[in-house]
């Protein structure tokens, strides 16, 4: 979801206060990045610059950590999060074709957000309901025993 200017200012102030409290602890970078991700939902270049400046380290170092851990996101999340399970059971049952269709319709790769900001495709392994394979979820809604043909109708609901 796009942030309003007021939210941006508020979160930036919160982040700066958090940094001030944490910059002198051992290994301050990870907790500060986690806080930033929690506040903004992702780590923009501007956010990473704020962190780098405050800790007097290069932005490339912050970016290096942000790209090392899958939990950090470099892009704003869409309004709806799509997870197509590519765990073993779903994969065997044809999850790749389902995922390909999602990618095809939205025009972005897993990990990215559609141009209209509506959907983010999340990298996903097992969702824990292999009996329904292949499975995808949109937010907390679960759709099972899918074929590629089902995808369009599901996305239209959101």
């Amino acid at each position, binding site marked *: 979801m796009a942030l309003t200017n007021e939210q941006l200012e508020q979160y930036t102030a919160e982040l700066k206060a958090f940094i001030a409290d944490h910059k002198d602890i051992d290994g301050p970078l990870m907790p500060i990045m986690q806080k930033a991700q929690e506040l903004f939902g992702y780590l923009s*270049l501007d956010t*990473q*610059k704020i962190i780098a400046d405050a800790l007097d*380290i*290069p*932005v*490339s*170092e*912050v*970016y*290096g950590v942000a*790209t*090392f*851990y899958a939990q950090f996101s*470099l892009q704003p999340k869409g309004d709806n999060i799509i997870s197509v399970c590519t765990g073993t059971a779903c994969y065997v049952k044809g999850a790749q074709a389902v995922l390909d269709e999602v990618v095809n319709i939205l025009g972005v790769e897993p990990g990215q957000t559609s141009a209209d900001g509506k959907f983010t495709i999340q990298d996903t392994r097992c969702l824990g309901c292999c009996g329904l394979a292949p499975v995808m979820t949109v937010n907390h809604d679960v759709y099972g025993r899918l074929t590629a043909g089902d995808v369009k109708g599901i996305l239209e609901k959101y």
Partner: protein
Amino acid sequence: MNMVTLTIDGIQVTVPSNYTILEAAREAHITIPTLCYLKDINQIGACRICLVEVAGARGLMASCVTQVGEGMEVKTNTEKLRKARKLNLELLLSDHNRECTSCVRSENCEFQKLCREYGVEDYPYDGAKAPAELDDFSPSIIRDNSKCIKCRRCVAVCTNVQKIGAIGAIGRGFKSKIACAFDKSLADSPCVNCGQCITACPVGALREKSSIDEVWMAINDPDKYVVVQPAPAVRASIGEEFGMPMGTPTTGKLAAALKRLGFDKVFDTDFGADMTIMEEGTELIARLNDKDAVLPMITSCSPGWVKYCETFFPDFIPNLSSCKSPHEMLGAAVKSYFAEKNNIDPAKIFVVSVMPCTAKKFEAKRPELSNNGLADVDCVLTVRELARMIKQAGINYAELPDEDFDDLLGESTGAGVIFGATGGVMEAALRTVYEKVTGKTLEKVDFEAVRGTEGIKEAEIDLDGKKIRVAVAHGTGNAKKLLESVRSGEKSYEFIEVMGCPGGCVTGGGQPIVSSSDLMVKDVKALRAKALYTEDANKPLRKSHENVQLQKLYAEYLGEPGGHKAHELLHTHYEQRPMFK
């Protein structure tokens, strides 16, 4: 200091207890191969080439990060180790772009050398290749990740020594790579183009953007009048490219080689350095005499430093001397004074600078460094590129006779020569400023306090009663430390010299590459600087204002130093730059 005794390959050696096994082995004259190790800069045990066997240890140890211990028994040369090292080389090679014949680092590639030594004759692990990218948007530096072995020597020098961190280790696993934040090009990053990453790289993943073809084309163009000028530090190092010992000055051979390459005129950037002193010295005196002037004044010869200041310390832009750097000054004089005197259309003149520097390639493209729409300098070659051209031309450099630079803009004093070493610009300026301020002859021209390779040097200079405080920093990391102390008010100076590269131009990013094994035993900064100081000591004239051809240039053309004409041709301005574009 605590000493410990250990045994390496049966040889007993006693070393300080904080030594690594690698350092201890060197004391015992035992060579352990390394790849990611770079003395004082990168010691991370990543490449697993410097493996050794330590009695009682579990597994093989990386000697570059393993500290010595009392009674330790180390083996560096066993079948097990040779196999392990070879295996690691084969694994590294599996994801390496093996275009060795067309690679600029062929024959001085540390990886290639190790593969040959360890008898790597096949590619047993040839498989998928990590996505490779070529970043050639920077005017100075090309990054070719297809050849990168991820040793991180470049990242270490950029982040820990230069304190810039334009590049870092990005991503994870097979997709991990060395890149700029947000995968931007170096051209859009805070990179200052110093090229220290190039001289740190063991392979061909980093190189200068070559201008050799452009220079050959200009030489071959009958309509172009091609003028060349080598920087002070070039003469101190280029002999190394032709097998001469480090620290051999080859000024006469350099002039001879440039003439044989077909340049129409061979001038000397040392002359430009003497010009810089006339202008910068005058500017300093004016600032000292004006109670409202911004002090300390900081030198502006080093384009890596200037971009660093513009990007990281924009509040110090008013402190930067307005002087163009020496080769830009000389270029401006070539396209005005020389052109008029010889009745040559300046538009047909093509000025080539041979520099120990990759940032000069960026500098030459600054639009403000021009006159009447003509760039002061058209093209910049590094020392490495010039050496390649000399080899292409079949010139036997080491056997060349000594020849002189061409008249008019070819004379130089000892002050111009020492510009290539850290502290040299400061010392050259002080020699002239002293005489201008006091009206007396400076008897002892050597200012030892500003010489040497210490990171930050300070001195108080007595100008016949008037005392000025000066400081010298080399490498942007030291500059950062120095400027922070000035900004906080902890330190106060009238005059500061900064060179962007550690050691100054003699160890600039465009200089001949020294292998990590040579760096372990040779003090490159001091050896090359010695060549310049020796040449200075042997010069009949050692103060810039004594340069006869330069006096003529001012009398006939420029007028007074710092005067109207001089300002138009020899001075410039700066701008704040964003970290990322």
